[in-house]
């Protein structure tokens, strides 16, 4: 568990979460602010039905939903308080896709015409507008900024494998999942490899021509089952490295990837250091 223990805290503006307090009229005097609704682990099912399962799989505490009408644009704010920073990062990573703009207000945010999304410690924030026009896009991010200030604590956590020189510029493509639904949403092709395995954490850097995954299993035996499946399924151009008793690194590359040697060297050097 050396690798996962070496998870680093990249940004830490304020330690110890003070929790989130809802938007009120003092925050945005020229807006119409509607009351906030809260959903806990079980009532999330009532709110989003089957969609709740993904959040519950990651580890979910509560959801705060609020509507705000600002500059004639109706915005819907969803603040998911997850059970851990990893869960916050994971659900953010599962919910972003081909972002039009990244790093708008901070590292790990994503701006699209209809939505501003950001990962902030154990919080995943989504601000949705219904019109998708530039003014709505701008105001969604503006509201995101207010929300980030209210949350105060902003932390980012991920294994230091991904902070190595070659990879750190691609962190926007880093994903985290810990169950079959997350995997189906992030990279469904691997879901068969994990069918027999109950508990796992997968950090996955999903690039165009290669994938670098750090997988932590609950038991050593489950890692062996996984390795057998890799062989049986003849996952092409893949290589694995065992780290401690329950963890491994998996590198998978497309056949036309001329850079794969570089990545292999990087992983080996990382393993030697750890």
């Amino acid at each position: 568990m050396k690798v996962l223990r070496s998870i680093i805290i990249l940004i830490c503006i304020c330690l110890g979460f003070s929790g989130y307090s809802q938007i009120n009229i003092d925050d945005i005097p020229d807006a119409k602010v509607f009351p906030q609704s809260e959903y806990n682990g079980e009532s999330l099912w009532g709110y989003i039905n089957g969609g709740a399962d993904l959040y519950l799989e990651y580890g979910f505490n509560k959801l705060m939903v609020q509507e705000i009408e600002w500059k004639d644009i109706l915005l819907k704010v969803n603040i998911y308080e997850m059970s851990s920073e990893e869960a916050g990062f994971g659900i953010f990573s599962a919910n972003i896709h081909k972002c039009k703009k990244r790093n708008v207000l901070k590292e790990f945010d994503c701006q699209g015409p209809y939505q501003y999304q950001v990962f902030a410690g154990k919080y995943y924030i989504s601000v949705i507008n219904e019109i998708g026009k530039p003014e709505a896009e701008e105001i969604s991010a503006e509201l995101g900024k207010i929300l980030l200030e209210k949350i105060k604590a902003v932390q980012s956590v991920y294994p230091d494998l991904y902070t190595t020189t070659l990879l750190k510029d691609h962190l926007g493509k880093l994903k985290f999942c810990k169950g079959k639904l997350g995997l189906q949403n992030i990279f469904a092709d691997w879901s068969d490899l994990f069918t027999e395995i109950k508990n796992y954490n997968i950090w996955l850097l999903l690039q165009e021509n290669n994938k670098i995954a750090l997988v932590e299993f609950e038991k050593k035996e489950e890692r062996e089952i996984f390795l057998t499946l890799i062989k049986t399924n003849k996952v092409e151009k893949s290589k694995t490295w065992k780290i401690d008793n329950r963890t491994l690194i998996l590198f998978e590359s497309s056949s036309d990837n001329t850079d794969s040697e570089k990545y292999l060297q990087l992983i080996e050097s990382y393993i030697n250091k750890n």
Partner: protein
Amino acid sequence: MTKKSSNKKGLNRRKFFSVLTAGSVGAFLLPANIGKLFAQDTADKKPETNIAEALKHPRTSTSMPGKYPSSVVKVYHENCLSDNQPDQEAAYKMITSGMLALTGEESIKEAWSNFVKPDEVIGLKLNPVAGKMLSTSHGVVKATIKHLEEAGIPRENIVLWDRREFQLHETGFTEENYPRIKIRGTEIKDKEDSFYNKDGILYGEEMIDKDWYYWADVEGKYDEHTLPYMVNEGKYSYFSKICTQEVDKIINIPILKNAGSSITLCMKNLGYGVISNTGRLHEKLWSETSAEVCAFPPVRDKVVLNIVDGIKGCFNGGPAANPQFITEYKTMLFGSDAVAVDRVGYEIILAKRIEEKIQEADKPKSRQFMEYANELGLGESDIEKIKLREIKLA
């Protein structure tokens, strides 16, 4: 329609398997390979269900897969969005083309007469669960209503329905927007936002029909916040009275959405949309519920037509709505065969997921519920056997 016997539990899956082995299937016909599927499920230790009870009921002339088995019509319209919303006029044209192609009729009135009659109460089963952003669209619903009216169905005989009445209201399916049309849901809140009546009983309790149920050996247990959305706990899921008593025919209008690497389309909209106590079924019986609930007569014999609203849909993050995964498919699908329509919809979503690099190839397990539905005699799941007609409108 015949109601179920008073045998509350009915035949469970294991007993049913024994019945099959003994060769005393009786009145219902099953495909030859159905035993294989059940044997596989037993090996996987799937919880038992009362599917055998459903299959005892003789099929009728309207039973799924309906009048046009294995047939699906796919209509694409380049300009079917107006101000980013599905356009009613374009949807109307898409429905006209789809219905004529599906039925082979020359007049649209004749086409509709294959499915509905003026004296029948027609339920349009919608899907508002993902909220305004990804609900069955008003463009498609209003266009369908216009068609029904032109086919002689009075507005008073049309019911828009789903599990949650308040979600229909939230997404704009209100009396104001749909005058003289009933808006109904199984799970109900009153004007004071309460799920309970003055006697402390859930309004939803009055909406379930205890004569019709889907039993599965999985216990539903919910906290006070969740119970109103589930109506009841335990091992029984009761069918909504809207489905069993209030409507004569059902037109199923789901949205083109994914559910993980699978889909939530015609069968899922019915399987999870017409019964109570569904929370317990997701984990172990997702595929089974989607298929088996459709095999019960209130669904099997009443759902005569499926119109998939795929003008806007999603390819990931479903069944919830995430703007980044919402796309303009600009497509509608038509068919009486819900399984075949689902299979065609599955291909559309799969292609988009591959294009968007969410997955690289098909995952056969994601098609399991369609294959099971095929084995239950509900429709065609083999893409090679589906007669697909494609129409492009400018």
